[in-house]
């Protein structure tokens, strides 16, 4: 294909009962393989090993390298986990809903989900871009349970709402939620940027020690360990600009005595602060 982008199309044929763990659906794995080799790739359903072709019709052609490979999934794959696991380049487009753990530990490339995404999208990611056009569930860009340091680079953009624990433990990179979020957004954040264009429930930035959180909407219950620093008019962070007046806080003092976490909250939407 001489450097041109090659496309592999996966069409779900059902059989998703117990969730399928499909780490194999990645441009890094598909690159350089024939369609038959791709059909033979192993996926797990519970403890059982299956072939990818038991769940998907496979057509098109893979590129020589991951960067030259695009994977298009034509339909909902809510019950397929780990799509794009550790991918370093190329592109995955899901024309439907995605399951849990999309783009875990990815270091490069691009994932586009036209529908909704499951929990743990972009867990521990290091680079690349994930765009979700619909809503997402919990633990978006959050590190694994029990771990305190997660996502270190890259970008996650959720165009709808997200659930609880957005950006837990991130140390770098950025997460932008256009809609609302649940509780514990930016918990244990230690670097990077988390932006919420809509409203947040409670415990925003809890146990945060570094990094930046911007909330353009209303925070229902403000986190107690933050102290007011300043009022600023308009913000410019990582090439993103935010208009209007913001109250700047530092915290979380409940976590340590000299925290470097910065929390910017819309003045207009939070008159009680």
């Amino acid at each position, binding site marked *: 294909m001489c450097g041109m982008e090659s496309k592999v199309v996966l069409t779900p044929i059902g059989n998703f009962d117990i969730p399928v763990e499909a780490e194999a659906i990645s441009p890094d794995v598909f690159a350089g393989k024939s369609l038959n080799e791709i059909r033979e790739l192993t996926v797990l359903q519970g403890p059982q090993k299956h072939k990818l072709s038991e769940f998907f019709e496979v057509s098109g052609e893979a590129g020589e390298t991951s960067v030259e490979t695009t994977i298009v999934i034509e339909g909902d794959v809510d019950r397929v986990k780990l799509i794009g696991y550790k991918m370093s380049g190329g592109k995955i487009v899901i024309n439907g809903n995605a399951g849990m753990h999309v783009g875990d530990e990815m270091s490069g490339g691009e994932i586009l989900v036209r529908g909704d995404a499951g929990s743990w999208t972009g867990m521990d990611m290091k680079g690349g871009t994930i765009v979700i056009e619909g809503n997402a569930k919990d633990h978006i860009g959050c590190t694994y349970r*029990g771990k305190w340091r997660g996502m270190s680079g890259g970008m996650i953009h959720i165009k709808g709402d997200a659930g609880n624990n957005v950006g837990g433990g991130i140390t770098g990179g950025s997460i932008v939620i256009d809609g609302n979020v649940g509780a514990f957004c930016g918990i244990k954040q230690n670097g990077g940027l988390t932006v919420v264009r809509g409203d947040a429930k409670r415990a925003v930035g809890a146990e945060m020690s570094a990094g930046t959180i911007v909330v353009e909407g209303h925070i229902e219950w403000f986190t107690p360990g933050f102290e007011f620093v300043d009022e600023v008019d308009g913000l410019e962070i990582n090439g993103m600009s935010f208009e209007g007046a913001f109250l700047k806080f530092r915290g979380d003092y409940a976590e340590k005595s000299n925290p470097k976490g910065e929390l910017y909250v819309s003045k207009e939407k939070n008159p009680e602060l």
Partner: protein
Amino acid sequence: MGNIIIKNGYVFDPINNINGEVMDIFIKDGKVVEEYDEKDAKVINARGKTVMPGGVDSHSHVAGAKVNRGRIMRPEDHYQWVRAKTDIAHSGTGYTVPSVYLQGYEYATMGYTTVFEAAMPPLEARHTHEEMKATPIVDMGAYLVFGNNWFIMRYLREGDVEKAAAYVSWMLRAHKAYGIKCVNPAGVESWGWAKNVHSLDEPNIHFEITPREIIRGLAEVNELLGLPISLHLHANNLGHPGCWEITRESLKIPSDLEAQTKIEGEQDFEKREQTIYLAHAQFNAFGGTSWRDFESGAKGIVDYVNSADHVVIDNGAVPFGPATVMTGDGPAIFDLYKLVGGKWSNSDIELECGAGVLTFTYLKSNPVHSVQWAIGLELILMIKDMWKCILTTDHPNGGPFVKYPSLIAWLMSEKARNDTLETCHKWASEKSEIATIDRELDLYDVAIITRANPAKTIGIAYRKGHLGVGADGDVTIYDIDPTTLDSNNYTEIEKKFRIAEYTIKEGEVVAHNGEITSAPTGRIFYTESKVNEDIERDVLADVREWFKYYTLGFENYPVDERYLRRPTPIKVNMEG
């Protein structure tokens, strides 16, 4: 139990003075026997390979409440370290705190067949036995924690060693335990009131007994009962700069006692000579006076060990990387938590002891951690007589046991050490003697510190740690040709020790090139000793009286044999 003949291997069996001779080993019905006809056995050709007795780990935290707390605290330790289920083996997860199944398989994969749990609180004995029961393949036993036990402190304060001995004897029987563990003597009791003790002659709270009195008393009790293992000490001030000094002074306390091992039916075997076995010496060999002038204090310990014949240490080395720090020394863990943060847990075991658990990572870029790495290696390389030391990581405190092969590589290869010195913090070379040591252990030395000496030290060398007739048929075959072994190629050494070609347990191949081939049930060893019946009756009356301070009933206290797999009592001192 099977019949296996291992032919033509280079055999390293230090207890029988066999240093790389080409020999055949005959195992019948699970025991090493004299030569017999090979048509009755599975024959393994070990030509060009290294044959050793199965590995013996004399100090590892693998079962019980604090280990399980570590597992619960650390889901992140589990999700990327997994072993899939096979027809023979269960699935398992966990790196520094593996699940019970996985730890059995990982030990077997590495060539180890015997593992002793380092600290069993009496109240947690049932839990500990339940976990040991579920750990496949390896033979096990557990040391019972006594250093801050109310009854012991009371009897020793009154100077009544006989009653203390009767109590220990009953407790070992009641809880199916193997020997006496003493953790931060006197200090853990004070920790119940947020205090600690910092010198050997500082009395603790309420009982007003000193660490010196407890160490001396328990060592005397140990030899009075004639237990297989000596007193096993986790010394005071562990983990604090300058602690090497109190450690050396502690080692001196039982220097005049004579080692007495009185195992019924076992006369003629390599008996222990030590009256004190110091646990994880690295953590108790810190020099300096603060973290700013921190340095190795190994020399002070080593000089004493080299001059004394009543001491054995295990090094408790730090191989760098993730660890889970867990010990009965609650205050030590709390001090570490204040220093580094992380996930911390602490508990009190009523009337008996306590425990702390903390997540931890040793970094090459960290000056103190780099010195700790050096101390762990110094504590073997600077000791003249290999029969005074044992290789451990104090799993999972210094690092997980699956890192033993890295430590073996560092001990066998000066180049391995030098290459690490180039990539770790300069304090390792500046604040220890590691850079000046050119000693390289050979396979015979490695066999001493990983099987022969741990077996001898814990008093089980009549059946473990050697390959003489009558020994258990536990054998490891490593794909190492001693005639072409190149210590500069240390990654190869590490690889070969990580995955044994064959691990044989009681004449059955349990692991072959990393795969579990059978998963037999191991034994649980515990000590049954006898003391004067009148004294024991008096002691039990005391125990019943003070049981009002426990939150459980006396009848529910002892652990019966149903909780043990293949219970194997070792009868000692039966004349009473």
